[in-house]
């Protein structure tokens, strides 16, 4: 067994998940891959298994947070030291993975964030989307006290300590931004590293224009709540 686990949450991504797994295995030999199929109704699980990933299939759809957390719980139980989150839609380039893992192994951060904005990369997005991201980044900056540029990036590497935290506490929907503030509350450090991001290869973003207002409200509320929680609370996240 290797010491790093790549977690790929997938909901009906049969078209892209196989290619993502193969390119990860090409780019980085020192990782295991787990695909968490979040109640997929297509052949996601079969395609992923055939491409060489370990597949965990959720009986019912839990949403992105519940699916990702399944991966973290598996990583915790199996004793992995590092966990990598990569989207199944192919927008994250596995070529960056060895570099991100190496950054995580330096040990100065509890989470390495693959960021589109640290240096100039080829990534472009719509004006309204950029504005939303800038706004969220400003909120997060206020909440954690230092600048995180690409708060919505789903390309992340975490260490053992973060794996253990995420196993017990992980936001259920729209987790990317909220998690950054959660880590700050536990005095854990996030560091950004520049990566290339591609356009989605297939499928649609889980955040459509109609939902973006709700998204902004929900995420802002989640940030505010994290700030209100302050230091780790007694009985927090009790089942």
């Amino acid at each position, binding site marked *: 067994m290797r010491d790093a686990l790549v977690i790929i949450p997938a909901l009906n991504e049969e078209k892209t998940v196989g290619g993502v797994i193969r390119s990860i295995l090409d780019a980085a030999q020192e990782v295991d891959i787990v695909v968490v199929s979040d109640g997929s109704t297509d052949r996601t699980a079969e395609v992923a298994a055939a491409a060489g990933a370990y597949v*965990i299939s959720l009986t019912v759809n839990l949403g992105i947070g519940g699916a990702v957390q399944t991966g973290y719980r598996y990583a915790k139980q199996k004793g992995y030291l590092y966990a990598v989150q990569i989207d199944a839609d192919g927008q994250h380039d596995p070529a960056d993975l060895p570099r991100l893992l190496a950054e995580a192994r330096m040990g100065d951060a509890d989470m390495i964030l693959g960021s589109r904005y640290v240096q100039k990369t080829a990534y472009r997005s719509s004006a309204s989307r950029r504005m939303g991201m800038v706004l969220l980044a400003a909120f997060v900056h206020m909440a954690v006290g230092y600048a995180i540029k690409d708060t919505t990036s789903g390309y992340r590497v975490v260490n053992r300590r973060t794996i253990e935290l995420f196993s017990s506490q992980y936001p259920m929907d729209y987790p990317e931004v909220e998690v950054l503030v959660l880590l700050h509350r536990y005095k854990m450090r996030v560091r950004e590293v520049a990566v290339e991001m591609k356009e989605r290869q297939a499928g649609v973003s889980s955040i459509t224009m109609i939902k973006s207002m709700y998204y902004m409200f929900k995420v802002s509320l989640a940030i505010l709540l994290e700030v209100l929680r302050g230091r780790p609370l007694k009985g927090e996240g009790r089942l």
Partner: protein
Amino acid sequence: MNVYFLGILFSIVFVAAVIDLMRRRLLLEQYSLFWLGMGLVIFLLSVFPGVLNSVAVVLGIFYAPSLLFFVGFLFMLLTMLQLTVTLSRLTTRSVRLVQEVAILRAELESGESKKTSERGGDTNDETVQDA
């Protein structure tokens, strides 16, 4: 038949219904105590309607039944909040269960293929020892 008699009748039927639900194990004891208390309050207010009037006078409420509505409304509000808290806990628990079941099933399925090829004798030996 006046409203007080109706109140007494209702509270008796209500308590009987709660007890029946408990009998069928459709309502846990921890929640039933609350409803039995509720039935008792309705019963007492119906038997001693003067109590409501006295309390209303003390609080400076001219129309006593409005006190009933006010208290009842607050009570329902708190009950619903408590219910959504319970619902949230149940949601968290079921999410955790789905996750654990999925992890275990994946292990079972990958383990079965391994067992037949690599360590087929292991489990059989243990059973023989136990017997």
